[in-house]
């Protein structure tokens, strides 16, 4: 728009028209803005509503079966006597082991790929492959676990054991952990690294005392989210031959690593497919337990993040 508008009338007229246009367009833009915010609100309300309905359904069915007996009994053909102790202990066993395996390997691989490997074609190929691995269906990992951990490494794992299950799930979540670690490291400004190098620090020193501590909250969140995925997996564990009924618990020793096991998702799956509705209620109860464990893990992630961020 020309600042000399006061002289000629045609320009004035033009300015008026433009202003009108702008105003009307503004109204339209504001309407779109409002419309979009309503749409977004609807998306939130809708998904929350679905979640609340699902939760309410599960809690209404499952809450009555939650009793001390439910946590301390083995599965039974009589719904009133059935419990989840073997599945619960199995789940805890497996998750602890998965965490022990994935944290050092996944985070280590992430740091190596992000901090030590120069940007090359091979690095890119590895990166793409890891991203692809993160998307491979879990049953494929089950087949791999069956062949490698259950059959080839029988001497160490003793077949369909807690250890085989944990190793299989560890493989499943490793790509997720590696990707989360790399993302987290990438978000640390490179000026920090350069400052360290300028002061004569080695790469190891820079990572250990500056980059890694800063990236840790993000890494931990990634690891725990990965574990949250592993805890709900059924297919790969059924494939490697996790059991459904075991009348004993793995002992708390290294031998326990080689003992057969079952986990909550398998128990839930089994109960859901039974004809008797009492078993469906037991499944709902087990779902509540699994959900509480999941929420506790996520709470731990948040706690750790806040703690390390200080």
């Amino acid at each position, binding site marked *: 728009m020309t600042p000399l508008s006061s002289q000629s009338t045609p320009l004035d007229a033009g300015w008026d028209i433009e202003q009108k246009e702008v105003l009307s367009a503004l109204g339209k833009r504001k309407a779109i803005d409002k419309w979009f915010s309503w749409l977004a609100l609807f998306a939130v309300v809708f998904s929350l509503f679905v979640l609340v309905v699902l939760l309410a359904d599960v809690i209404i069915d499952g809450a009555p079966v939650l009793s001390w007996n439910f946590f301390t009994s*083995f*599965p*039974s*053909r009589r719904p009133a006597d059935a419990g989840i102790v073997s599945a619960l202990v199995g789940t805890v066993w497996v998750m602890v082991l998965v965490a*022990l395996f994935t944290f*050092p390997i996944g985070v280590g691989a992430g740091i190596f790929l992000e901090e030590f490997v120069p940007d090359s074609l091979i690095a890119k190929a590895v990166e793409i492959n890891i991203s692809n691995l993160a998307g491979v269906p879990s049953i494929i990992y089950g087949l791999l676990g069956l062949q490698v951990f259950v059959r080839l490494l029988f*001497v*160490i794992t*003793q*077949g*369909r054991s807690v*250890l085989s299950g944990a190793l299989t799930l560890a493989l499943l979540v490793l790509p997720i952990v590696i990707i989360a670690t790399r993302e987290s490291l990438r978000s640390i400004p490179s000026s920090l690294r350069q400052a360290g190098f300028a002061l004569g620090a080695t790469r190891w020193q820079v990572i250990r005392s500056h980059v890694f501590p800063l990236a840790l909250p993000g890494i931990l969140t990634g690891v725990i989210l990965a574990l949250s995925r592993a805890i709900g997996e059924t297919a790969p564990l*059924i494939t490697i*031959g*996790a*059991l*459904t*009924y*075991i*009348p*004993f618990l793995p002992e708390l020793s*290294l*031998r326990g*690593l*080689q*003992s*057969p096991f079952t986990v909550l998702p398998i128990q839930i799956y*089994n109960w*859901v*497919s*039974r*004809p*008797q*509705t009492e078993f*469906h209620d037991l499944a709902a109860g087990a779902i509540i337990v699994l959900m509480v464990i999941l929420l506790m893990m996520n709470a731990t992630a948040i706690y750790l993040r806040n703690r390390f961020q200080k």
Partner: protein
Amino acid sequence: MVLNKKMLRLGYSSALVAVMASLAACGGGSQTAAPDAGTTETAAGSDVSGSVLVDGSSTVFPISEAMAEEFGAVNPDVAVTVGVSGTGGGFQKFCAGETDITGASRPISQEEIDLCAEGGIEYIELPIAFDGLTVVVNPENDFAQCLTIEELNTMWEPAAQGTITSWNQVRSDFPDAPLGLYGPGTDSGTYDFFMEAIGADGESRGDFTASEDDNVIVQGVSTDANGLGFFGLAYFVENQDRLKAVEIDNGDGCVAPSAETVADGTYQPLSRPEFIYVKQSVADDPAVAAFVDFYISPDNGYLVDEVGYVSVPSEINAKVIDRFANKTTGSVFNGGSPIGVKMDEVL
């Protein structure tokens, strides 16, 4: 803070090293509970110890679970574990020698017989229960009281796909109402048996609602006024208030599915035997022998009934007990189907 982190790290890494080291160390060790000796007396006795690995069909699982539970109460030193790999998956593991007993909702197939021969696994085939596949309709359906095998075949055969879509195409005096079909997934033993039994050559039309979870079929038929589905008798018994069972006419009049008609052999051809296959090489193992004796004992048939199946009639059961006592190996079906086979005669 620094100290904290250091301690955490130290504890963590040393724990990991310890785990790895000792695992490798005890890797060669024997399994916790795997007795080889056969010194203890056979049959049920509370001094038997050892482990029994059971796997296989999900249909047989509730029976095995009930048996394992009650057996464990009398024999606390025997660890019986039960897995669910499906009938086919169970045979894969069984023929590779990985399990002692495998449950099956159909007889061992020719391919699996070859697989076991390859693995050098000999097996004892024991029918342990019967199940009646039940054809169900919505309670509002007042016309389909009884269906013949031919009519079921008309509905389900591959040629019916896209053409048989209304009830009056099945029988002319049925109303012109859309036919809604529900059934188990194509890789389930129940599907195989049903299609074989109605003469559809083990295959069916593709345009029906398939679900691996029978409860979904219950849900489907109970909400579709013109629906029809099939599954094991137990799923009907538990849902009698919202489903109606169709009587089956095999040429000798209409027979309703029930524990009685399945047991006395009049509910044909949709009654099917359920099996366990015991690895012959471990049949002398005191733990396995005690468990199988318990499993096939007529005193424990009530457990089969309790979980929703039909226990084996006593005259057949006596032959099953003989079969295990004599360790008769092989399958009486020779890889074929059990339809029309009189268990009483072949055992």
